[in-house]
């Protein structure tokens, strides 16, 4: 990083929010540091260009400094270039804790949608193959993929099957006929997260998932048929199976009602138990528990079960998607490039001051981005780094990045996760009509299929930050390398 720290003085593009930059000093083009003051145990570090930083809500800074004050935090509290105001933790926040140093695990450091993530399927099909059947394919996918409020999946799990799903993840789904074993090698942890503890889930959490296996949800979740519009790193792209003009599919969703309920249950429990753990929370929202406590262990067990639920869910959706393609475009194979989550806490080994330590890394709205040669990356992809899948907003580009060698020292190998909203849902509905948006996007060759026009208006592309600026900042900061840009053709939304 370039030397010559200096105080920052920026103005905000939109004028309605402005991050308070007092005490923020610049360390290189894309790295900004807040040295520890008051209760902070470590610095807060933000990765962004000047414009993205200037546009960040002041709450991001406040929340990041609060995270930096939690017990057992190691290194720094990090904000990715797409960071925005979250619950306690900023969305786009990364923080690692050491159990041996009294470190904590936080339900809000993971988020309500546990293991929300993106997976991308590649094929030998071309953009023109999709365009030739676009309307029919959109109709078939909209019919096959349960999406939106009130939708239900076709599976209804018995208690026994629910337990098997919660411990088996995508591996369970494949064993039940949803997809192939080849898929599993291209999912984090081989599709099955160890240490899941179904008994740590409330009855409510289980009940909420009863009818929701294989559903997409709503909000910013989607299934998109896309094409590779630009390749930035030809060698990595080739290894990832991405070629210019090729058709791909990306799925963005999470652990559905089960994960939401786990978040709800443990947020309350962590708040109530904080005094008994001797925790003085800088903010009530930042509820957490020592990793090495009964409640901390219970949460980790429940969270891992919810992670398996998310992996199983995306696996079932993949199968439904392949079936729908098969009815319209026989021969579309849809090989899984990768599946990576961006709302998680994972136990990982990282080097700290020359010593390898086991850390619990929270990534909330941030994507794991292991660099080349990391043992956790599938063998075929390993020389190039882990694929990092960045979802755009409806109608805008998505990106495939690859983990960089420099990311480990910068941010525990973490990168951004998407665009992040720049406008509230209400502002969006005041500004755009759902029908008009659907028509405008159709005129640009992008078909939107959603049961809710109000939902479409709330998800208007311009209600989000510019994903390209976010990706560029992540790349230039050294968090990950840009491999390819994907543009949408069909978007199925809840």
């Amino acid at each position, binding site marked *: 990083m370039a030397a010559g720290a200096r105080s920052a003085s920026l103005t905000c593009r939109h004028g309605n*929010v402005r991050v308070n930059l007092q005490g923020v000093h610049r360390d290189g083009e894309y790295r900004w540091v807040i040295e520890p003051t008051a209760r902070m145990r470590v610095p807060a570090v933000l990765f962004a260009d000047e414009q993205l930083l200037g546009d960040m*809500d002041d*709450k991001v800074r406040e929340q990041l400094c609060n995270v930096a004050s939690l017990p057992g935090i190691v290194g720094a509290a990090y904000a990715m270039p797409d960071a*925005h*105001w*979250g*619950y*306690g933790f900023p*969305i786009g926040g990364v923080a690692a804790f050491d159990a041996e140093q009294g470190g904590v695990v936080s339900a*809000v450091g993971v988020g*309500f*949608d546990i293991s929300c993530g993106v997976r991308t399927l590649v094929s030998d099909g071309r953009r023109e193959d999709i365009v030739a059947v676009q309307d029919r394919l959109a109709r078939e996918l909209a019919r096959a993929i349960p999406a*939106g*409020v*009130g939708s*239900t999946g076709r599976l209804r799990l018995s208690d026994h099957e629910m337990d098997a799903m919660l411990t088996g993840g995508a591996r369970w789904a494949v064993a039940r006929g949803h997809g192939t074993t080849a898929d599993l090698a291209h999912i984090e942890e081989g599709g099955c997260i160890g240490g899941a503890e179904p008994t740590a889930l409330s009855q*409510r959490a289980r*009940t*909420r998932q*009863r*009818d929701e296996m294989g559903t997409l*949800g*709503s*909000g910013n979740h989607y299934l998109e048929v896309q094409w590779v519009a630009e390749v930035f790193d030809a060698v990595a792209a080739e290894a990832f199976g991405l070629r210019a003009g090729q058709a791909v599919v990306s799925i963005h969703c999470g652990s559905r*009602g089960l994960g*939401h*309920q786990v*978040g*709800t249950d443990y*947020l*309350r429990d962590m*708040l*109530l138990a904080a005094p008994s753990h001797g925790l003085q929370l800088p903010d*009530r*929202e930042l*509820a957490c528990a020592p990793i090495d406590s009964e409640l901390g262990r219970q949460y980790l067990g429940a969270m891992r079960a919810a992670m398996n639920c998310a992996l199983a869910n995306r696996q079932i959706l993949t199968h439904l998607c392949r079936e729908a393609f098969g009815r319209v475009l026989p021969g579309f194979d849809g090989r899984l490039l990768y599946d990576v989550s961006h709302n998680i806490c994972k136990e990982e080994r990282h080097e700290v001051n020359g010593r390898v330590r086991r850390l619990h890394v929270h990534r909330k709205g941030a994507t794991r981005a292991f660099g080349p040669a990391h043992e956790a990356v599938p063998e075929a992809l390993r020389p190039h780094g882990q694929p990092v899948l960045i979802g755009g907003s409806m109608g805008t580009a998505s990106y495939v990045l690859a983990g960089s060698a420099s990311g480990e020292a910068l941010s525990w190998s973490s990168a951004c996760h998407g665009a*992040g*909203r720049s406008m*509230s*849902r*209400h*502002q969006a509905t005041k500004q755009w009509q759902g029908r008009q948006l659907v028509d405008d996007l159709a005129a640009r060759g992008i078909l939107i299929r959603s*049961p*809710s*026009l*109000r*939902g479409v208006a*709330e998800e208007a592309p311009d209600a989000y930050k510019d994903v390209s600026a976010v990706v560029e900042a992540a790349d230039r900061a050294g968090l990950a390398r840009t491999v390819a840009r994907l543009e949408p053709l069909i978007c199925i939304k*809840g």
Partner: protein
Amino acid sequence: MIDGRVRAAGPASDRAGEWEHFAHGADIGVRGRGATPARAFEQAARALTAVVTDLPLVRTTTSTEVHCRAPDLDLLLYEWLNSLVFHMSTERLLFAAFDVRIAGGELFAQARGEPVDVARHAPAVEVKGATLTELSVRREADGRWCAQCVIDV
């Protein structure tokens, strides 16, 4: 960041309360006001439904009993709204009318509504949960009660 009222209160009723939404980054806040905490809780619940659909579209053909408890009023609001989220999610319901009674840290309520009709309600988004963010139940200067929190959608 709270930028005040962005949606007018629902039609006046004999409950003499009102609700509104407030902006929060990616999500949305719900706020209810009334003469008592119970009335404010009812209005906050109306605001919750209005996150999903337009309230006047929801008929009251079914009724659901809700019971919850918490050590303080703030957390009771958290439990109340999350109980409604649970029923909305698992029974595919939308609620429009509420009768809430609060006594000794416990809440007893009847929530009336109907099953989701996607064509008629055009539900915008599903609610993941009520959060601790901006969570507060307080008496205001005019003596009325205000109950609010941010909803994760």
